């Protein structure tokens, strides 16, 4: 295995934003900022971060990026190492770098939940989560919900109730509803509505999403 430190620039260039059009936007700042010592809690997952690297920092603080660095992510039960810029979102790391395109990016700013994945069973918007913030967490994506042997009862219920049309919101819906069932085995329809209140479906499939989730809850309780 090559020494991952080689990909860490000795003298990082200045911070950049993702768009020069209108100054630094809230999200541009989030995505553009290099990893600084403020993120030291995460550094264990950044490969090659050693006391030696820390000592070599020219700014007195530790910085990674904006160039690509190797990052170790734990996704669907397997370890993956990806070479990503620190500004890379978890959604981008999954879709572009790991080829796990089941997770969809729709609004790209945390309002539609199309990109929902779990961090340790907590549903998060992966478009608003930096990949480096997922270090040390167990990431579960739509691809990891079912196993080879067994379809997750919620996914089966989505098919049974026809809880999808174009299907683009479906992975996010499923991840949100499956997380609900993890924390509440006895949801009411109100609970389901509340859980998916951040999930946008443009085809208007909500009634069947409610029915499928309540049905799957019953299946899981009786399992």
């Amino acid at each position, binding site marked *: 295995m090559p020494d991952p430190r080689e990909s860490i620039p000795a003298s990082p260039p200045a911070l950049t934003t*993702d768009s020069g059009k209108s100054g630094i936007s809230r999200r541009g700042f989030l995505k553009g900022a290099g990893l600084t010592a403020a993120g030291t809690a995460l550094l264990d997952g950044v490969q090659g971060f050693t006391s030696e690297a820390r000592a070599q920092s020219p700014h007195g603080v530790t910085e990674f990026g904006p160039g690509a660095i190797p990052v170790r992510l734990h996704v669907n039960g397997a370890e993956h190492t990806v070479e990503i810029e620190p500004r890379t979102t978890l959604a981008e790391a999954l879709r572009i770098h790991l080829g796990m395109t089941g997770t969809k990016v729709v609004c*790209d700013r945390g309002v539609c939940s199309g990109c929902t994945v779990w961090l340790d069973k907590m549903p998060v918007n992966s478009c608003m989560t930096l990949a480096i913030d997922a270090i040390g967490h167990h990431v579960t994506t*739509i*691809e990891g919900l079912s196993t080879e042997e067994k379809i997750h009862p919620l996914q089966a219920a989505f098919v049974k109730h*026809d809880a999808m*049309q174009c299907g683009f919101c479906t992975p996010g819906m499923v991840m949100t509803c499956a997380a609900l069932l993890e924390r509440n085995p006895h949801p009411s329809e109100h609970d389901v509505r509340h859980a998916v209140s951040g999930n946008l479906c*443009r085809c208007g499939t909500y009634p069947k999403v409610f029915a499928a989730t309540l049905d799957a809850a019953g299946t899981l309780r009786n399992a």
Partner: protein
Amino acid sequence: MTKEPIEDALTAQAAAPAKKTVQMPVGVPGYTLAEETRSVPATEPPVWPINKDLKYVGQPIERYDGLLKACGRARYTADVQLPGMLYAKFVNATVPHAKVVSIDTSAAEKYPGVKGVHVIQHVLGNAQLRNPALDPAKYPVVRYAGQPMAAIAATTPYAAEEAAALVKVKYDTMPFVVDDVKARDPDAPNVFPGAADEAGSAGGGGGPHGVAQTGNIHGPSIHKRGDSEQGFKDADVVVEGHYVTQVQTHSALETHGVVADWKPDLLTVYASTQGTSGVREELAGFFKIPLTNVRVITEYMGGGFGAKFGAGNPGVVAAALSKKTGAPVRLMLDRQEEHLSVGNRPSSDQVLRIGAKKDGTLTAIHLIAYGTAGCGTGAGCAGPAQNLYQAASLHTEENDVFINAGPASAMRAPGHPQGAFALEQTMDDLAVKLNMEPIDLRDKADTHPVRRVERQIVRESELWKSRNPVAGADQGPVKRGIGLAQSVWYRFVSMGSNAEVRIHKDGSLEVFSGVQDIGSGIRTVMAQILAEQFGVPPSQIAVKVGDTNYPEGPQSGGSVTTLSLTPVVRDAAWQASQKFLADIAPALGTTAGDLVLVDGEVRSHSGKVAPISFKRAASKMTTSQIAVQAKRIPDYDPKKYLTYGGVDVAEVEVDTEAGRIHVRRVLSVHDCGRPMNPAQTISQINGGIIQGISFTLLENRLLDPKYGVMVNPDLEQYKIVGSREIPEIDVRLVEAYLGQSSTDASGIGEAAGVVSIGAAVANAVYNATGVRIRHTPMTPAVVLAALRAQGKKMA
């Protein structure tokens, strides 16, 4: 010029193919079911009975690709990654109206990772000047903020975005107008320096060509029937209303975009589109290459709702960048671009007048409508006024008003939600004035036999029976009300519908069509048809769609897909089964005429052959496969049953202090010929209702009058209903046989509630409060203003 004899012979043959006479079920089972005679080509399959007597068709079969979608394994265009693929990003106009002096891409070209730059010479989507000489500029004139100007292809999405920001565009700005009422003023800045019409690729959403144009007003387009002046003279009662609806954007979850891979002999394009064949045609035409050199693939697409036809700017620009760079190029729009540059539902501003006799007989319908499709056309909304009721006279005038905003495109039942919002409220006004029940007035004015049945179902429903006919009767600040409205759509047949069925020697079955699944579930329906023919479960049929390598499929717009394609699939399956029986008959020691394929078995009329399974029979084929391709034949009786629709009932609660409207329950009674798969059909109707409620209560494209830009091009300030606003929806699917094709299916996408729910909600609000709201979106501010204007002192 005299015709050659051979040509005459061919014409005669084409004009008189062998025919047979069949009896077909027509009408609504349980209400009006009868038989009608049709003369059909002899090659047509036997007539199907009504759904209850079929095994797979008409049943709620699970979505063929449901598990792929639920498990995140369905591959959309946004998911396509090809080796060496570049990421492209548009440079968009930042001003609403300008001549472009220069576009300097030098800094962008030098940016690390950039592999190609393309400056747009011909922008698609905007209306085009009848006299192009009026715009002699080198670059396309900017007619709206957000118009694509150039594009960058780079090795990462970041590099493309950063380089796009380095492109320097020098504008010579011009006065602009973004308010569609101000744009009608003779002194308003003109969006176009002369008359302009919709360009070719509007996807069915464009307005008429060649009509008069004065300033920004493109129209009127006039439609008349009878003498409306006389009609109003004959009327005992006249009602009139002024209705205003807003611009809505499609907001499909997957944005517009493509991955284009230009190779010398073949351009392969993965496209998020409603029409693989249309994308292919536009690209071949744009680059002047044969159709055979373009292949378009759409495995899955994340919603279109009318906006995704043709290659459009993303398609041609990505292909041009791929050609330049020699690498595949991905160009998916971002959410802001999706709101600005690839279509919307036009606004409307309508004055509608209806005259009637005391008994409810309509003597005249008169509509003057304006609306803006931005810098495109297609704001006409007279469809419902022209087609829902049979008034003695009719006069409609439709006008497009140009403003400096992105061009509209077709959106789910173009013009009809707007038109029905006015028409169905005016009908309710008329009912009040005539002291009639709204449902009785419609029985009088609407002769459509299926809607008559649908109104009967509404009459007998608990929901309608619970309606208090006295408007505003509830005490207290939160008032409950119930209203109804009707929907109309049309039987459009796409003759460009083709399919192929293959029977393989191992007994496996395949069906191919270039058609794309836009979410309505065409794969499932195609599998059901083969299942019905061959007696094999639908999940065992291999359905291959979304690729122009297959026989050309219909483009999915105007509710044509199921209606047009399913008879083709059935014809191909039937003809393949006949060829199959003829092929295996000798091996079974009998003749083709003796054999029949029933319930997955080959059986013999004569009893000479013991029944054998289809799979075993297939092993006796003399060839490795039997393939039959079929095309759409015209409807059996194209003069009959041209429209269909439904009736929607809404129950609302109006909080008269907060101004909030909550839709509690909806009863949605709809017909679509033979429903092929009720589960999928109900999904579409749920969707129509929900999109319609969203349009009625929330959605609004807001343009800043000072800067001419959209202020809410996102999904947080552009409000769309979510899970908590979804009413309880009770869909009653009405089987309505028409005797029109071998499957007798119609479409449902457009008629599915989106047309009528807005007016149903408004009529329910009137029933709750006694106040009529003629303006969408019915936000709390609009509701409170309407209550105040009518001097309603709330409890």
